[in-house]
């Protein structure tokens, strides 16, 4: 719809709608005409008939005015309402004012309370700060203590009065393999392998107040034994009552190992020293006996021939005949002794007999045949075992035969007074050696005697029954073979002689050495 623009000059201001309805607008005013012209699209205002105008424009204008008045009425009404509302607002405002004042008072009270609280809070704050600093100090002290404990490489633990573990350091966990939790609450003595000794130590500690360098062994979780040196002191409260124990334990494994190694070295040194002494003794004895034996040979040959000559020219009825027979027999014994001396001193056999490859078992068989009569007569139970794969060795057969013979004869001698008569011969390979051992169930050899058994002329047998050369000869012959002869014996538990003979050719080595 086309908009109607009403002239500003149009006098439309009227007080009431009634007035507006009653009013007649003078038509032929120029402004109205113009207005009507515009509204009605009329070209010629002169042709506008009043009636028509009244009917159309008047009516319209009245409607417009009515609308305007209605709006004005609504405005006035609204204004009234606003007025009423304002009054209400004022009333409420007054009420609020009162309420506000009350609140203000309450607020002030609260403020005061708040200030009090503030003060209290500040006090609390300062107390808290003090506490905080105390706690921090304590924490620092605690951390320091813990660091001290954990930086130790030794076991450090504390117990309560009854000996139950209350704390341990890191080293304890590391050494024992147990976690702290597993240890705390356990009785201290159970921590050690020697529980009785540990308990005794703890008891001593409680009496004496301290314990130092007490040897114990910690058994780790993995079952390994760790030797420790245990030191401890009692903990007391201000009233001097014992509240617990503080113990440290140092792992002395390395120390022990070093001690053992040192001991081993000392033992080895002693052994080699005694070997040197023995070797020196044997050499000196060997040289001397060889000289003596050689010097004795000539006169003995003379004596033997003189006696045999006399015997030849003495009648068997002559009472001197048997005396001469005795003399001949004894001289032959002397000859045998001298022969043994020469064998012992190695002056005799060297260069005579060549080395050959032979099995020890075959040699033992021969020796057993030689001794079979004695073995049977003396009711000795002889057992023999040769391990499979025992190799033949390079040896001078006669020498080894003599060694076996001497050792078995000695074993038989040892069983003479023994109730249990058993000999066991065992042969097996032992690395680069063949080991032949002769074990008897005889009376054994006391340690003080065992040291001397290889000395020439040392014997425990009655005079005239032995020369004391048997084992010296064995020793000497085995040494020639670059072997070893060892004696293991416990008084009452029999004796075992071990002969170790190298499998390699000893002769070749010997020549290299020479």
């Amino acid at each position, binding site marked *: 719809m086309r908009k109607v623009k009403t002239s500003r000059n149009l006098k439309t201001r009227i007080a009431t709608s009634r007035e507006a309805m009653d009013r007649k607008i003078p038509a032929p005013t120029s402004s109205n005409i113009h207005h009507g012209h515009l509204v009605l699209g009329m070209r010629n205002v002169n042709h506008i008939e009043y009636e028509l105008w009244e009917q159309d424009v008047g009516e319209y204008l009245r409607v417009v005015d009515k609308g305007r008045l209605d709006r004005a009425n609504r405005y006035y009404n609204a204004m009234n309402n606003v007025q009423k509302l304002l009054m209400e607002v004022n009333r409420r405002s007054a009420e609020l004012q009162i309420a506000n004042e009350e609140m203000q008072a309450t607020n002030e009270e609260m403020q005061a309370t708040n200030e009090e609280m503030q003060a209290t809070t500040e006090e609390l704050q300062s107390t808290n700060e003090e506490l905080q600093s105390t706690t921090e100090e304590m924490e620092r002290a605690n951390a320091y203590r813990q660091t001290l404990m954990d930086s130790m490489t030794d076991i450090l633990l504390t117990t309560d009065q009854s000996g139950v573990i209350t704390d341990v350091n890191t080293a304890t966990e590391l050494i024992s393999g147990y976690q702290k939790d597993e240890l705390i609450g356990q009785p201290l003595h159970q921590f050690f392998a020697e529980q009785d000794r540990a308990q005794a130590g703890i008891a001593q500690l409680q009496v004496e107040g301290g314990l130092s360098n007490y040897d114990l062994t910690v058994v780790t979780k993995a079952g390994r034994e760790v030797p420790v040196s245990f030191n401890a002191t009692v903990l007391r409260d201000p009233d001097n009552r014992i509240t617990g124990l503080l113990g440290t334990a140092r792992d002395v494994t390395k120390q022990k190992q070093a001690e053992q190694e040192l001991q081993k070295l000392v033992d080895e040194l002693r052994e080699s020293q005694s070997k040197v002494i023995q070797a020196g003794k044997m050499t000196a004895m060997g040289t001397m006996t*060889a000289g003596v*034996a*050689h010097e004795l*040979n*000539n*006169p*003995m*040959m*003379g*004596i*033997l*021939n*003189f006696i*045999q*000559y006399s015997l*030849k020219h003495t009648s068997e009825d002559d009472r001197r005949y048997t005396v001469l027979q005795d003399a001949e027999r004894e001289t032959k014994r002397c*000859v045998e002794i001298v022969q043994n001396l*020469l064998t012992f001193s190695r*002056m*005799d056999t*060297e*260069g005579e007999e060549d080395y050959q490859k032979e099995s020890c078992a075959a040699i033992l068989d021969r020796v057993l045949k030689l001794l079979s009569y004695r073995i049977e007569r003396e009711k000795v139970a002889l057992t023999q075992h040769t391990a499979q794969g025992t190799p033949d060795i390079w040896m001078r057969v006669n020498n080894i035969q003599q060694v076996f013979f001497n050792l078995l004869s000695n074993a038989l001698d040892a069983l003479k007074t023994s109730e249990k008569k058993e000999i066991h011969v065992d042969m097996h390979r032992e690395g680069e050696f063949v080991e032949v051992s002769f074990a008897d169930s005889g009376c054994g050899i006391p340690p003080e005697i065992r040291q001397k058994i290889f000395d020439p002329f040392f014997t425990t047998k009655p005079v005239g029954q032995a020369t004391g050369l048997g084992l010296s000869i064995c020793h000497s012959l085995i040494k020639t073979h670059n072997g070893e002869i060892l004696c293991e014996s416990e008084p009452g538990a029999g004796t075992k002689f071990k002969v170790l003979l190298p499998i390699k050719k000893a002769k070749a080595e010997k020549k290299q050495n020479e």
Partner: protein
Amino acid sequence: MSKRILVIDDEEAIRKSFILALEDTAYQVDTAESGEKGIEMAQKNNYDLFFLDLKMPGLNGVETLRGLREIDRDVPVYIVTAFFKEYLDELKSAEGEGINYEILKKPIGIDQIILVTTGILEGAAVY
């Protein structure tokens, strides 16, 4: 003429032993107390057998053996000794030069002396 034996040994007991042992045999036993004396006697007489000691003052057994072999290359020489290691090398080198000898081990008794002597001189199969 009976066969002759020379015993060269510095030990009287040994020399006597041979004399006594062979007393009842048909052999003639001479003795010399040193190597020098033995060689001297060997030059003068013909011996069928020598018993010779090794360890003697003056000429030792091996040196005496060489002397004897200069006189006679083939007559049997028995070295009677208890101990010959000391002379082993010398003996070996003598052996290398073609000097032959036998060894008898001291001490030997009367029966062995007779046995060895008759064995050598009569060629009897005693061994």
